[in-house]
């Protein structure tokens, strides 16, 4: 135990004191926050860039409607022919021309309306434009049925159905999606951690081989101790880096938000923008209700169990993969020789992420999701994605959780055992690029 902790300490310090590690640790949050800030800033710039359109309205309808469009300013053209209007719009470099012909009824005028532009217009813009026409048309039809404008606004309020489980617990819509996003975030985190710190472990093994310090060390400690010490020490360095990232990242984000004075509303506008809702004056109270609902969902997510399972799956998954990385590092002489072994290691991780995002999102407890959340090389990622919906009723059945963790532990023990064998032989082999056949032979030594 004493030797193991010595090794862990050395590996930890060697990693933490490394210059590029220090730079990465402190620069990454700055870069990340900088990127986000830049994206937000650019989105704001883009958002504030108003499109200018011209309107040639020969009818008596739609006199002021187009001015209501978000981020669009309108130049009204008068006493021009259509051809002249098109020409001048193009000459002036405006976004496009809305043409409403002279007609006796709203329907006819609408039917013959056109939007002319140089390039094909964006979907968002077109939707907005179409909504204007549509709103008037609906209103007109309802008026003929004797419904006033106010009455129409009152009935167009959204309705949502109440949902509940059979036991009467209230279900919230969109919970699955939100859960999958949160679970996916955790899964993605695990994958990134495994790939980044696994290759740190591998590089550290290769360094010991190339500097020839390895034989000196293993004449004092067992190769298995060295391997585990290395894996644990490196992951502790990783956790340290991670904590620094989270803390400094949050502080930086706070600072950036204060500087840019970006509140959540601005964010939402820059991000998606729900212009119809605003332009049409549709129930803003509905929005608030939504937010409240999402907040409830957020609280309904089983955070404590999610975090505890995150730790379990993270530790087991990381140990499995980093032992494989250590074995690869031991088998080769330099990093370029690792290529042939990397693909089989990374593919299950990639598969897990893709399967997770595609299949767990649509059906968190379907057969594919269940299968991949039991298979030990993908379960750390896929199971976490499923777990955000909770354990037991309505969530992951307990037996699946037990089976998946049991399989993971069995795999962990056997992979570490195999990796240690390859490691033990590999660290003393120089000069030969090993094949899979060689690795298989080493297992039998």
């Amino acid at each position, binding site marked *: 135990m004493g*030797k193991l902790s*010595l*090794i862990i300490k*050395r590996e930890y310090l*060697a990693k933490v004191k*490394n210059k590029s590690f220090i730079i990465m640790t402190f620069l990454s949050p700055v870069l990340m926050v900088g990127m986000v800030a830049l994206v937000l800033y650019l989105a704001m710039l883009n958002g504030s860039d108003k499109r200018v359109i011209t309107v040639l309205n020969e009818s008596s309808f739609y006199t002021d409607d187009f001015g209501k469009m978000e981020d669009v300013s309108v130049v009204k053209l008068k006493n021009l022919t259509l051809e002249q209007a098109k020409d001048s719009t193009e000459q002036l470099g405006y976004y496009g021309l809305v043409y409403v012909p002279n007609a006796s009824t709203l329907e006819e005028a609408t039917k013959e309306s056109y939007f002319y532009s140089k390039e094909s217009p964006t979907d968002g813009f077109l939707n907005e434009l179409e909504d204007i026409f549509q709103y008037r048309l609906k209103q007109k039809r309802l008026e003929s049925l004797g419904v006033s404008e106010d009455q129409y606004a009152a009935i167009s309020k959204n309705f949502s159905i109440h949902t509940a489980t059979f036991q009467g617990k209230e279900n919230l819509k969109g919970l699955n999606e939100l859960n999958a996003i949160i679970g996916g975030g955790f899964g993605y985190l695990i994958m990134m951690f495994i790939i980044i710190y696994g290759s740190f472990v591998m590089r550290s093994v290769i*360094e*010991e081989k190339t*500097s*020839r*310090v390895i*034989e*000196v*060390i*293993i*004449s*004092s*400690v*067992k*190769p298995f101790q060295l391997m585990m010490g290395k894996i644990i020490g490196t992951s502790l360095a990783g956790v340290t880096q991670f904590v620094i990232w989270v803390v400094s990242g949050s502080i930086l984000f706070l600072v950036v938000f204060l500087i840019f004075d970006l509140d959540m509303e601005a964010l939402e506008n820059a991000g998606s923008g729900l212009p119809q809702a605003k332009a049409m004056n549709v129930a803003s109270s509905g929005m608030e209700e939504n937010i409240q609902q999402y907040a409830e969902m957020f609280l309904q997510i089983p955070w404590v169990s999610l975090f505890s399972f995150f730790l379990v799956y993270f530790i087991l998954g990381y140990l499995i993969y980093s032992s494989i990385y250590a074995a690869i590092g031991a088998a080769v002489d330099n990093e370029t020789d690792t290529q042939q072994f990397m693909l089989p290691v990374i593919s299950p991780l990639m598969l897990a992420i893709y399967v997770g995002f595609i299949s767990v999102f649509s059906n968190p407890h379907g057969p594919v999701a269940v299968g991949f959340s039991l298979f030990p090389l993908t379960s750390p990622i896929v199971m976490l994605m499923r777990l955000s919906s909770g354990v037991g009723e309505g969530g992951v059945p307990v037996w699946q959780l037990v089976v998946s963790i049991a399989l993971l532990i069995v795999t962990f023990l056997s992979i570490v055992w195999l990796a240690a064998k390859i490691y033990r032989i590999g660290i*003393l082999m*120089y000069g030969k690029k090993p094949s899979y056949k060689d690795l298989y*032979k080493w297992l*039998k*030594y």
Partner: protein
Amino acid sequence: MSTILAAKGVSKKFGDHIALNNVSLEIPKNCIYGLLGPNGAGKTTLIRIINQITYPDTGAVFFDGEPLKPEHIATIGYLPEERGLYKSMKVGEQALYLAQLKGLSKAEATKRLKYWFDRLDIGDWWNKKVQELSKGMAQKIQFVVTVLHQPKLLIFDEPFSGFDPINANIIKDEILHLKDEGASIIFSTHRMESVEELCEYIALIHQSEKILDGKLSDIKKEYKNNIFNVGLQVSEQNDIVKKLGDTHQIWAPTYNKQDEQLDFKIQLPSNDTGALLGYLSEKGKVNHFVETIPSANDIFIQTVKSKTK
């Protein structure tokens, strides 16, 4: 004499390759034991078995009378042939780390390191990074780390590689000094002159088998071929060489007219030199008559060649 280390019928296979085949050795206490053999003979495998880096398939190793077990690692010091240090670590903290892995406390290791660094005149390297050191300097540190925990058994695999002659001498003196202080030393090398200089005992491993071992002086006696160097003062060369050549094997006869000296090498059928000396003194004055003793190098080459399958 008691033995510090005994290997009994040790065999080791790597797949189809036999690295050691039924090797038995006894290494006496407090001596320098030369472990010789061509490249790939199996020396390193044997040394790794002694260090419990690998384990024998069959056979057993005994350390100081007991079967070899993990606790013995702390009483063995090993300087491997393929050796190095962590490049980005500082000399001092690295030496401390390696010493602590051998079971020394931090305080004790610091104290002893200071002593050795002063002794080898490298005290001011403590805070240097290993990558700033020359190869020879790094070797010195490795030597210190090997001996720091005062092991009973020291194993040096090519200890002088990478040293200039001056530093090689310093290290050689330190090895002899350690032996005087009671350590037993296994010395593996290809440099026969240092074997000649240092080793009392040798073992020769070739093609995975031990083909020769014992006290170097005994082996040399065994390998004597009754060949003598003769210097005879005679006024004329006459037919001495021719006459002796009829009954004996003779090499390189030369006659120096000015000094009136005849030199040659002659092989006798036995160790009995009486008849020849009698004959020679009749012919002239015997200036020298010396038995040639084979060098370790000769023995190495001769044995390996004759035993190569």
